[in-house]
């Protein structure tokens, strides 16, 4: 770290306040988003991926531990709650369409949710992942705070689950829409619902770029899948003997 005494003083001060890492998080995001827009929204330059990579690099260079970083960044993390509530607004604007397909939505939700859990645990098991990782993997399709809670309840590693959840979201944001389009799923509400169910908030952020309608259905799927997965994971894992 800095060898100059004045710089050391400044660094000691900054390292103690939330200001530094909160600012760094916002700047990393703005920079990553700028790059993403400049590159014509190239999927591989997803701003979440770039910003995380950037921040991990900075933390390693400055020898800062994650807890110190999170003490600052938690203010951003906190906004996940109100943002989830805010999904009520796009949802409400599509309430007519939603009502018209309520039963199909509920059935697709149950089937999709079970598929998400079984596919993750099943493929992971086939590829030889260890039981702790499998348990951390089970709730990976749902939003971070709920997934971490479930992971803890079933004997996974909550912080590892958070990472797997984010990676899942990024994979969904990168590939899900393209795969659905290639398979000729044209309806934006169907695509949005599927992406939100499989890839939670990061998928929902991607779906919002497709259209408000896709975003509204993605938000709905994300919210409901959080609840359904919380119920299904303990049941299915018991059935699988994990």
């Amino acid at each position, binding site marked *: 770290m800095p060898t100059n005494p004045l710089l050391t003083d400044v660094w000691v001060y900054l390292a103690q306040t939330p200001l530094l890492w909160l600012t760094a*998080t*916002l700047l990393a*995001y703005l920079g990553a988003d700028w790059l993403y827009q400049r590159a014509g929204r190239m999927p591989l330059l*997803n701003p*979440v991926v770039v910003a995380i990579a950037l921040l*991990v690099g900075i933390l390693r260079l400055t020898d800062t531990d*994650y807890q110190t970083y*999170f003490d600052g*960044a938690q203010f951003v*993390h906190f*906004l*996940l*709650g*109100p943002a*989830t*509530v*805010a*999904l*009520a*607004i*796009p949802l*409400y604007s599509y309430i007519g369409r939603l009502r018209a*397909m309520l*039963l*199909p939505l509920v*059935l*697709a*939700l149950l*089937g999709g949710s079970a598929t998400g859990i079984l596919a*993750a645990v099943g*493929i*992971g098991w086939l*590829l*030889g*992942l260890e039981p702790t990782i499998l348990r951390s*993997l089970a709730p990976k*399709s749902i*939003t*971070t705070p709920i997934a971490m809670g479930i992971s803890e309840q079933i004997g996974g590693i909550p912080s*590892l689950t958070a*990472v*797997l959840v*984010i*990676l*899942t979201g990024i*994979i*969904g944001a990168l*590939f*899900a829409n393209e795969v*659905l389009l290639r*398979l000729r799923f044209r309806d934006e509400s*169907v*695509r949005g619902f*599927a992406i939100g*169910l499989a890839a939670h*908030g990061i998928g929902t952020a991607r779906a919002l770029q497709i259209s408000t309608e896709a975003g509204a259905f993605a938000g709905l799927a994300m*919210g409901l899948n*959080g*609840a359904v997965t*919380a119920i299904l994971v303990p049941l299915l894992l018991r059935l699988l003997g994990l």
Partner: protein
Amino acid sequence: MIAALAALLVFQLIGEVLARTFALPIPGPVIGMLLLVGVLLVRGATPRSLQATATGLLAHLSLLFIPAGVGVIVHLATLQRALLPLLATLLMSTLITTVVTASLLTLFRRWFSPTALAQPSPPSDVQEEPR
């Protein structure tokens, strides 16, 4: 904007309190979201400031996942140990889930429409049911 933010927090708070009081498996913010949809339905319109605040917040939804994502730094060793199988599992299971969900939704919509839309009946007897 402050009023709208306060409204979102109030709904989240009610959601969290309900979730904890009744030990519901549904997360607090999701309950808050459903309650807010209910209130908007009764009200019949979204207040303009709430619309603006929600749109602003949701436009940068991906930003909110960065702090949790940086947690990858704690698990670099575990991830490196099982990198390929883990990435393969995440990729395949996420895409399978997406495609299965989209297929189910398309299938069930076809199944239940257009006659079943007015009066949804249990899936088993939909096709035989005379209308």
